[in-house]
């Protein structure tokens, strides 16, 4: 079962918060590295979209959320899922096509959802989850639940009609929604320079009456502060916010990517803006954690991933029997 151990709050507000933020960023990094390794060893089939280099964005956003708040995610969704509190074993098991995987092997990397942690699902269609988050926000408003719905999406999704229709509905109905754009500069091979005629993607909110803020997406503190403000706005009934988090994916779009559209120098330059050492230097400077404590957090993340991989590898494979019965939920069930 899912072990939900989220600790809400500013990553610099206490030792616990700092170590929590660090742990989640490490978990995401090490999860992605494990996925790449499993893939390289031929243990995982299909494809994978890694978010290495982007760990601060989902972590910072989810530190501002309650367990009951909901998210929708993307094809590059492992980080969102982990940041919202998903169980690592069930995630890896899903990638390996195991019965105990989140989707019982029916969804794979791009379709992990976790009801317990408010994750309404990653999505294989660019922009597909954005109107769904707006619907979750609508339900929250109609049912007076007070929950917030966050849609994570990439820069590419901002040019999909789904974003525009969803943004407008959220704005006119003042829904408790956050449009969280992880601007990693490329929609597959299309750079934002080629795909947009505006500098700041957060400005897209102007046309809908939605405030937009652009933050350093590799700085978990800055992401958290923007997220906290957007969550407060949403809970106060003031409507949606667009957060544009500037970040970068170190790895290719997917396994087929030969990185023909960008230079090695550019990738190296962004590796110097790695969100992990950046946060570590802040907590060291503030004296929140010692180097030993930081190393222990890293080890903890490592151990959790190793445990998850070992458990998932041992787990029973998903079987084709019963697939036909899985298409519909049973009436009355």
């Amino acid at each position, binding site marked *: 079962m899912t072990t939900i151990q989220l600790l809400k709050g500013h990553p610099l507000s206490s030792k616990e918060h700092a170590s929590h933020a660090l742990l989640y960023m490490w978990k995401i990094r090490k999860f992605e590295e494990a996925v790449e390794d499993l893939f390289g060893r031929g243990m995982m089939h299909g494809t994978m979209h890694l978010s290495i280099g982007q760990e601060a964005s989902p972590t910072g956003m989810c530190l501002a959320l309650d367990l009951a708040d909901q998210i929708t995610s993307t094809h590059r969704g492992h980080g969102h899922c982990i940041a919202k509190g998903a169980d690592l074993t069930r995630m890896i098991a899903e990638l390996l096509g195991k019965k105990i995987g989140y989707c019982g092997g029916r969804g794979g990397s791009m379709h992990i959802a976790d009801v317990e942690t408010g994750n309404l699902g990653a999505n294989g269609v660019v922009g597909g989850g954005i109107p769904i988050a707006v619907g979750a*926000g609508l339900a929250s408003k109609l*049912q007076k639940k007070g929950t917030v719905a966050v849609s994570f999406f990439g820069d590419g999704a901002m040019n999909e009609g789904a974003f525009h229709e969803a943004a407008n509905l959220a704005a006119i109905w003042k829904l408790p929604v956050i449009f969280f754009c992880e601007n990693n500069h490329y929609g597959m091979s299309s750079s934002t320079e080629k795909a947009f005629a505006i500098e700041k993607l957060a400005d897209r909110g102007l046309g809908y009456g939605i405030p937009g803020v652009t933050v350093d997406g590799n700085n978990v503190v800055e992401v958290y502060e923007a997220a906290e403000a957007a969550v407060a706005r949403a809970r106060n009934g003031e409507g949606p916010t667009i957060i544009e988090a500037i970040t970068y994916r170190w790895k290719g779009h997917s396994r087929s990517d030969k990185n023909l559209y960008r230079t090695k120098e550019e990738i190296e330059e962004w590796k110097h803006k790695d969100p992990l050492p950046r946060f570590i230097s802040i907590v060291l400077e503030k004296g929140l954690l010692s180097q030993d404590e930081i190393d222990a957090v890293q080890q903890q993340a490592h151990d959790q991933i190793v445990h998850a991989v070992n458990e998932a590898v041992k787990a029973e494979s998903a079987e084709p029997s019963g697939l036909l019965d899985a298409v519909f939920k049973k009436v009355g069930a």
Partner: protein
Amino acid sequence: MADTTNRMLTMAEAVREAMTIAMNEREDVFLMGEDVGIYGGAFGVSSEMQNKFGADRIIDTPISELGIVGAAVGAALAGMRPIVEIQFSDFTAQAMDQIANQAAKIHFMLGGALHVPLVLRTPQGSGTGAAAQHSQVLETWFANIPGLKVVVPSNPADAKGLLLSAIDDPNPVIFLEHKLLYKIPGRDAVPEGVERIPLGVSKVLRHGSDLTIVATGIMVNKSYEVAEKLSAEGINITLIDPRTISPLDMDPIHESVQQTGRLLVVQEGPSHGGFINEVIARVSESASFGSLIAPIKRLAGMNIPIPYAPQLERAAVPQIEDIEVAAREIVKNWR
């Protein structure tokens, strides 16, 4: 079922009554769509409902089909039971990602923990002179997507009972109402109370030993007229309305074909890849095939976009005369 009140409602009234019952029964049901509020919907189906339930439960939306359906999917995932009205079924094309890739697949693809109790109601069909982008019958599109239930009511009484079941259903249901049926009373009275008709049960409208007709939507009504007329000539027809084309209940179809040995299938949508071909395939690959004494006959729309001028529009889809000729020929030519 006999009804003492003998209420003859139109399809629009019956659909409205089902929605009203459902909204009175449960707080999580709401209707959302373009002009469904003050305007009462383009075809008046939700007329006066906003007065009764308020603007939070009969929600007017901008012209934004993808956004509306997506928001309904999200609301359904978050515990509501949305009914979405898309003004013309043709416009579902605008929302197809949310219908086909999201709503239909979420339960299966995401491992069964989530489900999408969503009803998408939309008018379809030709006969209004609205031309190619407002006249299609699209039931086949939806029936080809695993994860959607597809309901095509042919009369007000069925529409009411089926819609009540659709709203209760934990899965996405596409509910296709023929716009020519909205304003005409059905043949049968509509029960006043809450009588649900389960999805996935074909209805046998009349029994006859000479020919089996399977028809969908408005073609059921056209076929009924033909069956009544031909019975005076001694041609006895069994008429079957599947009502829900996905899931499809073949049992009464097999049973009837095994008795009559002759099968005519009728749909309004184009023949190429059409739903009725599925009925033919299932008969052909079953023991019923051995009972056939005549080639199976198929009547469907021409493989063209629906044209505008009335004489062209009529020519594009099966008419009563076409069904009559086909039915008579099968029975007369294959004895």
